[in-house]
């Protein structure tokens, strides 16, 4: 067999599932139709705290078309869960408004919906507390924050350094709760057969979902199969198992029928996670030349009564700038609210809004250009750990971005430029995101027709994973990509880490390379002969990933924004957004650009549009649909450009790639807010930047 080809990594290969997606043939979770299918429609709690006293399920099962109605009084028992959110219908407690308290199964969607609407539930309501305040008496320090970081860190004597600093910035920033809102609502088709369960689910990780679901139902993982070839976006919200998938499996079990359950857009605001609101105090001490002497960054956030989720908001501050005396801290309060969870760049997205806004305030205070200020505070090694960076090209990104954006000669005076009836201004901020890599398995197979199949239980949630793994495999096998087929999204494939932490390419790519190498070795041993039944090799990267040497591994970037603020209405619009990123080797420039641009678009929307408003009276998110929770349309960002600096970093993985899925959203909101300050002279420290905050 012939194994020679030009490198595919770095080439602009078209998305391999493109035709399936544009023809409507790509099948998403809800679009599966097992025999005897029934429809499940959940019922949500209408109190924010209390107990369920009764549910009139007997009346509902007499309604036309209804097969079953399940509440905690008759629900199948689940094994105890580490995550109390997953103990669905296991007790009478209501821990947040919108929590699932019952589910109706019927022959048709219409009948199920009608019955769910009519199901009478009586509650004993208790007074609730849903308001995040920094001075909440129940604020506490979590043991660790998300991704395993320590809650607090301290070096030197930051309080003394702040007291002695010639220039001081001390400001409090707020970011609202935000909901991921992937276009495809979470959905599950659950099918029991014998003692096994098949889930067609919209998930970012089939392997992880199986590991979570199986023990809940008292089964070994191999009795559960999760299938998820196409996922309509997730942005973190389909990363961990959530109540709806458990509810679907439970309803199917109780009804003795396969069921399908789709979360409605409105329900998504309660049961599918969200980004915690944050209150952040940042204090920067500097000399008059803008060199930082002290950094203190403290974050106050919320979680639910059911589960501790502590967003790692101040962790980017541990990485960004040099300063001898420094402290970061996280405080958490448990409220009668849904559990927050991962949303694109948890930690970095809200944390860098605060830090990079504060850096802009420092630039203004010192009279130094904000690009130059960041360059002056570039550290030689990771500031808190002292570890060397595997590569760090923030300065190169800032310089390249400034050149492309036309930053040179910018007049820093605020509120000094108009264009028509608009005040215009420009702003800059830095981006960063850690490089993670997790163990995965993969197999590579060659058939006698010289076609290759690579199998890995990875997820393509729109990132282009299937496409870039095709390229990675083609190079490892030294063939053209048209001879490689990559299968993902099924627990029948070798187990893989979930799509999260921008770690897909690094984690899955390593496993795919190793499986392909093993296959080539085996082929070599056989003198290139492929037996009639084909040849297969597998790889498991647990050891390789566990043994990687210690480096500070992060991607960096610089974002530049131009905004216009309407002089009459105060409405701010982003006219132009330009980002330059340093994220290792870029495997596919087309899908990578889409990832960067998608992240930046969400960052623009974090700056100007997104806010889940907590209704203190009723205890739920008030604006729970797409008419009231605003995400960008094609009109909202007329000009967005992403560029990158190629890095050759030997300390990452066989691809030399860093993750790119999340960094695009990091820093964007600060760049926009800084531009709004430049345009208007108004410093908006609480997102989103709505017109009422600009009209005086």
């Amino acid at each position, binding site marked *: 067999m012939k194994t020679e080809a030009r490198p595919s990594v770095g080439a602009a290969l*078209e*998305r391999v*599932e*493109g*035709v399936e*997606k*544009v*023809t*409507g*043939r790509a*099948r*998403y979770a*809800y*679009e599966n*139709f097992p025999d005897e299918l029934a429809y499940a429609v959940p*019922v949500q709690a*209408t109190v924010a705290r209390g107990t369920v006293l009764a549910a009139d399920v007997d*009346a509902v099962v*007499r*309604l*036309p078309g209804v097969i079953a109605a399940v509440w905690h009084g008759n629900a199948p028992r689940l094994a105890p869960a580490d995550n109390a959110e997953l103990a669905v219908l296991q007790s009478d407690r209501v821990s947040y408004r919108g929590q699932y308290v019952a589910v109706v199964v019927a022959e*048709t*969607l*219409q*009948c199920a919906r*009608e019955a*769910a*609407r*009519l*199901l*009478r*539930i*009586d509650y004993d309501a208790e007074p609730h507390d849903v308001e995040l305040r920094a001075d909440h008496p129940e604020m506490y320090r979590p043991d660790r924050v998300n991704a395993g970081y320590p809650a607090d860190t301290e070096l030197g004597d930051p309080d003394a350094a702040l007291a002695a600093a010639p220039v001081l910035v001390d400001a409090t920033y707020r970011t609202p709760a935000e909901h991921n*809102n992937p*276009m*495809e*609502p979470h959905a599950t088709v659950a099918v029991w057969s014998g003692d096994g369960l098949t889930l067609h689910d919209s998930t970012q990780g089939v392997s992880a979902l199986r590991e979570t679901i199986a023990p809940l139902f008292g089964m070994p993982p191999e009795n559960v199969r999760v299938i998820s070839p196409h*996922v*309509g*976006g997730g*942005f973190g919200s389909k990363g961990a198992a959530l109540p709806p998938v458990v509810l679907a499996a439970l309803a199917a079990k109780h009804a003795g029928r396969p069921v399908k359950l789709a979360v*409605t*857009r409105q329900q998504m605001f309660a049961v599918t996670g969200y980004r915690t609101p944050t209150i952040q105090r940042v204090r920067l001490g500097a000399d008059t030349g803008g060199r930082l002497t002290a950094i203190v960054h403290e974050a106050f956030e919320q979680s639910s009564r059911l589960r501790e989720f502590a967003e790692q908001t101040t962790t980017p501050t541990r990485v960004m700038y040099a300063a001898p005396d420094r402290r970061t801290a996280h405080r958490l309060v448990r409220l009668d609210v849904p559990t927050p969870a991962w949303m694109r760049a948890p930690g970095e997205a809200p944390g860098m809004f605060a830090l990079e806004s504060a850096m802009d305030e420092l630039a203004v205070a010192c009279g130094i250009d904000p690009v130059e200020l960041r360059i002056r505070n570039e550290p030689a090694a990771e500031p808190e750990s002292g570890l060397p960076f595997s590569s760090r090209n923030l300065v190169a990104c800032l310089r390249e971005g400034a050149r492309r954006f036309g930053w040179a000669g910018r007049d820093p005076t605020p509120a000094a430029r108009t264009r028509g009836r608009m005040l215009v201004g420009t702003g800059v901020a830095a981006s960063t995101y850690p490089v993670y890599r997790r163990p995965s398995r993969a197999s590579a197979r060659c058939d006698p027709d010289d076609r290759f199949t690579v199998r890995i239980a990875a997820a393509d*949630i*729109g990132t*282009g994973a299937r496409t870039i793994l095709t390229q990675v495999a083609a190079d490892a096998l030294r063939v053209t990509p048209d001879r490689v087929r990559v299968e993902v999204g099924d627990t029948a494939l070798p187990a893989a880490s979930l799509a999260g932490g921008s770690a897909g390419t690094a984690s899955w790519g390593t496993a795919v390379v190793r499986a392909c190498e093993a296959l080539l070795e085996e082929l070599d041993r056989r003198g290139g002969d492929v037996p009639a039944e084909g040849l297969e090799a597998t790889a498991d990267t647990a050891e390789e990933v566990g043994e990687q040497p210690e480096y500070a591994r992060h991607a960096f970037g610089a974002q530049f924004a131009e905004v216009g603020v309407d002089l009459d209405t105060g409405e701010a619009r982003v006219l132009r957004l330009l980002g330059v990123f340093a994220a290792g080797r870029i495997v596919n420039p087309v899908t990578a650009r*889409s990832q960067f*641009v*998608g992240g930046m*678009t*969400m960052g623009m929307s974090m700056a100007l549009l997104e806010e889940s408003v907590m209704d203190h009276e009723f205890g739920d998110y008030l604006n729970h*649909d*797409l008419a009231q929770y605003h*995400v960008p*349309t*094609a*009109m909202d*960002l*007329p000009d*967005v450009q992403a560029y990158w600096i190629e890095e050759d970093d030997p300390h990452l993985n066989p691809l030399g790639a860093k993750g790119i899925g999340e960094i695009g959203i990091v820093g964007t909101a600060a760049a926009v807010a800084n531009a709004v300050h430049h345009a208007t002279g108004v410093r908006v420290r609480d997102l989103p930047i709505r017109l009422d905050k600009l009209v005086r």
Partner: protein
Amino acid sequence: MNGETDITGADGVPDPVTADLRLSVNGVPRPVTVDTRETLLDTLREHLGLTGAKKGCDHGQCGACTVLVDGRRALSCLTLTVTADDVEIVTVEGLADGDALHPLQAAFIENDALQCGYCTPGQLCSAAGALAEAADGWPSAVTPDLSAPPRLDETEIRERMSGNLCRCGAYPGIVAAVGQVAR
């Protein structure tokens, strides 16, 4: 809101009312019996095996369910199926001519106008409808001269496509793809 109506048995709730219809979808007659409460989106997806049209919100807020009804854009989640028995419905599955992709479909792939793909069928049907509207001289909110035939420049395309949300942020590709076909 659950819990508002007091029900004591099935007596108060009538059996579902159904209607026999002869839909025409993608040029094919599709006889179907539907619950009169059913939306065209649910009929397409749950009864006719046409899962190309997507449900993003079920409330007319996202555009994922966009299909063409007699050549015009329609939100199938806001269309009761019983109102659609004497019209010609085209879904994303009906855009291509056999294996030959519709020019919009090819342009979407070429411009990477999709990521997760969930908004894509709605974007495509909406784009096809928008091109037809412009060809018929319909102005949009940003058309500068209402007396002249509209010219589909970038701003016109952005405006005319603004009813279709894409959370992945594939808008630059979408706008480029529609522009490529409009020219």
